[in-house]
Structures are given as structure tokens and as C-alpha cells.
């Protein structure tokens, strides 16, 4: 299949057109994988506590098969989630080029988002509670027009995050 003539001319265009899909993406810190695992472990614990309370309230009206089956299903889901996190982790990564910033992720649904520097509205470095206790930060890049088009790079060491932030800010101010 062929696009129109201007389109196929792209071979002679300058190196800005370096195809994004063959580039080496920068991987996230390994600790970030651990954070995600702990996060889903916390969800599992809460779900189990919730179910336990539920069985206590409805005092003995629940068949024994359900009492055994539900925690078992929770456990299977948890293991599945762990596998998902471990296998999906190498797919996550970011890429800074001369003109744009990209983030990719996804084991089953691969997603690659790219924001050109001259469309960045502002940049933010943030940490949630778990991230803070593990000493990790994330860089959030905002564009105009709602949250759909925004990008967030998690799992960065704070120094690195601030480096990226100031690099992006310098690029943004250059374009103003």
C-alpha cells in the first residue's frame, strides 16, 4: 500500500525522521517493578481482609466451597498479575530525542506515546507514597487539551527525574 507522493518522499528528509520504533529505549529502575508487585500485594491483602469480614458478617450462610474458592481465585489473579508485571516490565521505557519525548509500555497492548517538545505545556516531578518510601520519582509531561494526550514516565531515580525535567524545560523555553 502506498500513501501519496509527498509522503513517500520522506526518505530524503533530515534525521528528525529517524524511525522511533528501532531506537533503544531507556529502561526504568528495577525498583519500580518491586513497587508494582508490592502495590498488587497490598490490593490482595485488602481483598482478603474484605472477604474475611464479609464471611464473618454473614455468619455461616456462605457455602464452604465459596469460602475456599474465592481466596483461591484471588491468589490466582495475584500470581497472574505478578507474572504480568514481571513480563511487562522490560517493555516499559522512555526515549528522549532531539525533538521529542516518548514513553512505551504494554505486554498485550503495546502503546507508544510521543510528545514533541514544542507542544509541552509544563513538566512536573512527582512521587506518591510508595514511590517516596522507595526513593523513586516520576516525570509527568502535560500538553494542551485534557489528560488523553499526557505522558508520565515512572520509575526514575530522583536525580535522573530532575535532570529530565530540566532538560525538557530548557527545550520548552527554547520554543517559546
Amino acid at each position, binding site marked *: *500500500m*502506498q*500513501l*501519496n507522493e*509527498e*509522503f513517500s518522499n*520522506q526518505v530524503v*528528509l533530515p534525521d*528528525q*525522521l529517524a*524511525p*522511533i*520504533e528501532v531506537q533503544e529505549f531507556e529502561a526504568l529502575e528495577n525498583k519500580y517493578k518491586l513497587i508494582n508487585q508490592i502495590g498488587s500485594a497490598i490490593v490482595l491483602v485488602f481483598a482478603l481482609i474484605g472477604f474475611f469480614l464479609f464471611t464473618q458478617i454473614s455468619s455461616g450462610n456462605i457455602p464452604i466451597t465459596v469460602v475456599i474458592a474465592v481466596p483461591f481465585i484471588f491468589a490466582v489473579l495475584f500470581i497472574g498479575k505478578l507474572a504480568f508485571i514481571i513480563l511487562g516490565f522490560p517493555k516499559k521505557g522512555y526515549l528522549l530525542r532531539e*525533538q*521529542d519525548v516518548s514513553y512505551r509500555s504494554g505486554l*498485550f*497492548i*503495546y*502503546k*507508544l*506515546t*510521543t*510528545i*514533541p*517538545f*514544542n*507542544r509541552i505545556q509544563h513538566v512536573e516531578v512527582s512521587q506518591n507514597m510508595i514511590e517516596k518510601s522507595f526513593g523513586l520519582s516520576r516525570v509527568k509531561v502535560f*500538553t*494542551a*487539551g*485534557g489528560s*488523553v*494526550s*499526557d*505522558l508520565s514516565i515512572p520509575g526514575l531515580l530522583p536525580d535522573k527525574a530532575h535532570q529530565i525535567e530540566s532538560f525538557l524545560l530548557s527545550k520548552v523555553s527554547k520554543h517559546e
Partner: protein
Amino acid sequence: MSKPDLTKPTRQALRGILVIFVFEVQKRLRVFWPILLLIFAQKKLLPASITIPMAIGIICLLMLVHVILYYLNFYFYIEGNQFIIKKGYLRKIVLSIPLERIQSVNTKQNLLQQLLNVYSLEVDTAGSVGNELKIYSLSGSYTEHLTQFLESHKENTNEEKSESISDTSKEVEIIKLSPADLLRIGISQNHFKTGLIILVFVSQIVDQIKDLFQKETDAYSDSVQNIISNSGILIFTALIIFALAISIFATLLFTVIKYYDFKLVKYQQNYRITAGLFNKRKVLLPFSKVQQLNWETGPIKKMFGIFKISFKQAVSKQVQQKQVIDAPGCLEKHIESIRNEVFKGDLPDYSEKIYSHRRYFNLLWFQRGLFPAALATPLYIIEPLWLIAGTFWLAISAVYCWVMVRKSYFQFNKSQLIVGKGGINTEWQQSEAFKTQSVDFRQTFFQKRRGLASLRVNNASGQIDIPYIQEDIANKLMNYILYHVETSNKKWM
């Protein structure tokens, strides 16, 4: 008519004080209604000597005093290149807006304002202040001068030197809807939607009435049941026709109220839209602010040869709701001329149409056919007859999804992107490549095996989806759009 002096601090029109009163009461009610409800429901909460009418009277009196003080302390004027609003009696507020930051000036007129012949004026900036910049009661002549001044000033500061402004100072009327047009538009609307809204509404009311007149309705419903069981199909079809007639009438009514006296006027590098029966809206829309243009037609619309076109503007983070301005009842030539103006004649209509891959059907059918049908599984177990309905649903949705796949395509020339889509209706979206904010490349596990991918092109007003195209085309298109954005120096808003 003397020209009002814009630089002199001015109060709002005195005869509009009632309008201010109503708006202020509305504002307070919106905040305090739970408390008021509580007080009036639990009369014990009121001091013994005060009755409810007295309480309402006191509240009204306090509001009146507030409104008068508010009115006396509200000034606006232009100083240098700032538009200044001073307000507040307890807490003084001075708002000053640099004229070049003003994005648009909109005026509105509700029924009360029409009676008093005053206008609301809303100044829209790219920043956050938003609601603060509203003036509720302005006299007609003042409104006209102020809008004209603010708009003309905006034009001067927005340096568009390449465009010659010499011959464009006049207004050109592009679309004007006559009552006959409104009739056509009303008929071609989606009646199912209105029908559903009415159905929900009516069933709510019926429920309420039932509770009130339990006995009477019981007697009635007995007789109604008798009639229905005796006349069967006849009454059923009559009911359907009746419901259809009502929803057609209601859509007609809504259309007339919303689009009465609709006018789309071209004015230098702007469009101006005025419309409305009870609430008169007047919206100014600079070409450069349009992020995306959508236009659509449906089976009935096609018969009349009309389209609906929507101008999508940037969404600011604070507002969050999408700013869409639409013009119904456009003819093909209107669509052509609007597109030519907004996109400077650079239309990709003659480039090759690249259709979504047939596999797109699997995703659509799963979402719309298989998944809902599977959700109804308990029904099949309870009553096997439902299986027929389920099968019917699968077949119908398959046809619908197939039509959707056939209509899904994109066209791209060096600077513009058009996406076509739709099921019963047909819809087109067009945007300029350099107005793109970011690009998403998506590929599911299933797509990867077939070498397919989907692309989402985000702009400041929303996104354009290009589903299920060849992976290499998706990659090329993504890189090309990025290249375009990165090399462009044009202002995207």
C-alpha cells in the same frame, strides 16, 4: 445614539438589576440548597417566632441588599491595553486582563434579559479565571461597542501580517436558517435519543402519580389491561406511532428553541454564530482557534442534502468540558467553503483513501455484539426463548459492525488529516498536522500477529483515531506527523 466612553469606569445597566438579582439568587441556591431544604423540612430548626414566609422574606431582603451593594461597587473600563473589572464591597477585587490575552468575547441573552433589553458578556481568556469575567447586565449599545473594541483590538495585536485585512472588513453571511430549514433539521435529528429521554421522564412521572393516586390508578390499570389484552397488536402499533409522533414533535421543539434565527457570519478571520429563542447565544470563533472540524450526515439528513458541522476548540484544563460549537443544516457547498477557509484550501480530498483492515471487525463485533450477548447469559438459562433475541442481536450487530468497518478510512496529504467513520450516520474529522499535541501508537497482541496497528492523533480539542491500519503505514504516518509538528513554527492556537 451617542458612543459610550469605554475608558470611563461604568456600572452595569440599572434596569438589569433584576437580572443580577436572579443570577445571584441562583448562585446562592446552587450552594446552599441542602441547608435550605433541611431548614424547611425540619421546621423546628427555625426559631419559634419565625415562620417560613418570614424566613423567605428575610432571605430575599438580605439578597436584595447584597445585590444593590454588589451593583454599586461593580465597575468596568478600559485603561491602556487592559480591560479592568472592579468589584466587591467587603472584599474588593480588581481584575485586569491584557487585551491581547482575550481569546473571545461572547454575549448571551436569556428571556428576562430580552425583556429588559440587556446582555450578558463573557470574556474568555486562555488562562483560568473563567467565571470571574462575566458581566450580567449590559445595555445593548454598550455591549456592541465593547465587543467591537475588544475584538478589533485582538485583531491588531494578533499579528497576521501576511493576511491582507483591506478587503475583509465586511461581514459575510454564510448560513442563515429559515423556519423551513429548522423543520428539516428537526425531522432529521436522532429521534430515538429524544424518545428514550421522554420515555424515562414519563415513566418517572407515572411512578410519582401512581404513588399519589394508588386507588384510582389501580382501577385504571385494570381497565387498561383489559383493553390491551382485547385489542392486542392494534393498540401496540398505535402506541408506537404515538410515541414516535411525540418524540418527533419534541425534537422539533428542541431544535427550534436551540437554533432559532441561526446565523453563521464570516467576519475577517473569524466566524460568528448567533442563535437561540429563549437563550440568545452569540459566539465568536477565530479560524486559528479551530483545532478540529467534524461534519456528519445521516440517512434522513442525506435525503435533504444537509450536514451538521462542529467546530472543536481547545479545551482548557480548568473548564474540562469540550467546547464544541455546531452549525446544523449546512449544505455541501457550505461544508466546502468552511473547510477551505479554516484549512486554507489545503484539503487532502484527492489523496488515496486508506481503509481500516477487515480485522477491525473482530474488535467492533466483540465490543458491540459478543460481549453484550454474553452478559445476558443468565437470561438464557432462566428463559431459553431469550436465545432467539440473543442470536438476533448477534446478527444485527454483525451487520452494523461490518458497515462501520467499510466506512472507516483515513486520507493524508502533506499537512492535513481526514478520518472517515460511522455506522448509520457518516462522520468525518479533519485536523491540521501541525496542531497535533501528541501521537499514540497502539498495537494489541492480535494486531501484532497480523502486522496491524492503530494510531491516535491527539490535538488540543480531543483526538482522532485511525484504527487497524498496516503497521508500517502507521509508523510512517506517526513519524511524518511528528516531523511536521517539530518543524512547524506556526501558532497552533
